[in-house]
């Protein structure tokens, strides 16, 4: 179900999930958006894919917590001490704020990235006004790189069949790498030139406004999803104004 949502809705979600907590100005808001993201990712069955990302950023956030906990400017209240190292409450809370924000950003982007086909995503960006050339570069990566890897494997096989040692000790493998470079590079340069011409004769350089074969399918869920998001955004703006007026 999440996979079928229009990428545009997911982009709106990213926007709201990061703006609304900033408007409300409470850590609880950020935390609840993280919770919503987790729920959405679970429905989309891709929650486990966020683990490597979270592990990596978790390491950085931990160092942030340690440094802020010890050295934050407004540190006055002692939280706890490990031997001679004293952690302060203010610093830890500050670090918690940063951590929540980072995780919120990561989670909301994960929804877009993990539940959308790369080609759809690029197409949405082009719809939104990204240059088609840049869009081409982004989407061709998913197809051309695997093809280049295949060519490289063919060339390695050809060299091996003529008696070159390509396996074994690290030194042999490094040695085998150099003769591979020139055919692979030359090969890709030639095919890049040919492909550039092939794109050109199919009107890629045209100044005409592009149209799209794939209609972005907006479903009923998209409407509900967007409505709820906009509502949250309006409510949080309202909340902010109320605070100002006090």
């Amino acid at each position, binding site marked *: 179900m999440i996979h079928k949502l229009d990428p545009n809705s997911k982009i709106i979600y990213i926007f709201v999930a990061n703006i609304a907590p900033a408007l409300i100005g409470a850590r609880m808001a950020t935390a609840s958006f993280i919770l919503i993201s987790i729920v959405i990712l679970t429905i989309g069955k891709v929650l486990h894919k966020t683990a490597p990302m979270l592990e990596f950023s978790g390491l950085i956030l931990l160092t942030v917590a340690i440094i802020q906990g010890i050295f934050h400017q407004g540190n006055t209240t002692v939280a706890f001490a490990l031997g001679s190292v004293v952690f302060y409450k203010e610093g830890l809370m500050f670090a918690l704020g940063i951590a929540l924000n980072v995780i919120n950003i990561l989670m909301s982007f994960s929804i877009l990235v993990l539940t959308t086909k790369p080609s759809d995503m690029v197409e949405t960006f082009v719809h939104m006004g990204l240059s088609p050339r840049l869009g081409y570069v982004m989407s061709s990566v998913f*197809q*051309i790189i695997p093809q280049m890897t295949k060519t490289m494997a063919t060339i390695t096989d050809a060299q091996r069949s003529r008696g070159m040692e390509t396996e074994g000790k690290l030194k042999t493998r490094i040695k085998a790498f150099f003769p591979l470079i020139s055919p692979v590079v030359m090969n890709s340069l030639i095919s890049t030139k040919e492909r550039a011409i*092939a794109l050109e004769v*199919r009107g890629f350089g045209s100044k005409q406004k592009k*149209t799209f074969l794939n209609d972005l399918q907006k479903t009923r869920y998209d409407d509900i999803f967007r409505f709820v998001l906009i509502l949250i955004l309006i409510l949080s703006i309202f909340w902010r104004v109320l605070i100002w007026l006090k």
Partner: protein
Amino acid sequence: MAKIVAEHLKYKYPLSEKLALYDISFTIEPGEFIGIIGENNAGKSTLCQAMVGIVPNFYKGAYGGKVLIGDMEIAKSNISDICKKVGIVFQNPFNQVTGCKLTVYEEVAFGLENMGLPRSEMIDRIDYSLKLLDIYKYKDRNPFDLSGGQMQRMAIASIIAMRPEVIILDEPTSQLDPQGSEEVFRAVQNLSREGITIIMVEHKMEKIAEYSDRVMLLHEGKLIAFETPEKIFSRDDLDCYGVTAPAYTRICKSLGIKNKKTGFYPVTLEETKSLIGFSEKERCPYDQN
């Protein structure tokens, strides 16, 4: 429909000393099937590219004379405008795949998206061209998972969908197996019947002789002759230009069998058969054909 006219076309690639095309002039009528022959480096591909504007717009280099498609002058137009009138298919089917589309259907749509066509029109055209080239059944496959012949037909379909008036095929079957080439030739024949002007560079002389209305013989960038296949292949100096006549012509030449009506040697199997009075009844009775 547009006439193609070349007037004293000369061209030199950048960083090259020699002219790749030397003073070429010709006129091609709408709907004609033109074969281009000549040995390697005769300028066949360069001439093809000069008709779509890749020469000189993509490669730059020194250019003289002019090529007109209808009233459009190639050297002064953008490739993106020319490609609406003239389509070109290259040798290597693999390098013509855009690489940014995941299915055959979307791949064919690429050119149409760039032309800014409305969606319904796009679908009509894609369906039509996929069916014309008999690859509609592969429409949901990944372009890179097709065989060479299928991929080349997809490349042709992508060009057809753009509805050009002229289609140029630069050795479309040189990298294909016999079955794949046969598929492509059949497709090209279909196109010719639709009334599209076709210009094809090919080394398989039997095919050139069979399909072409006229044949262009190139040598070292010069246009040696532009005649009917019978006239071209009956020349005595073909080997000087590195060209071998079709097998039928060679056999009839050595046997001295000429077509009395035209005074030239036959170039196709059918013509040879009728000349030597071959009767259809002599066929093997078990032959399915």
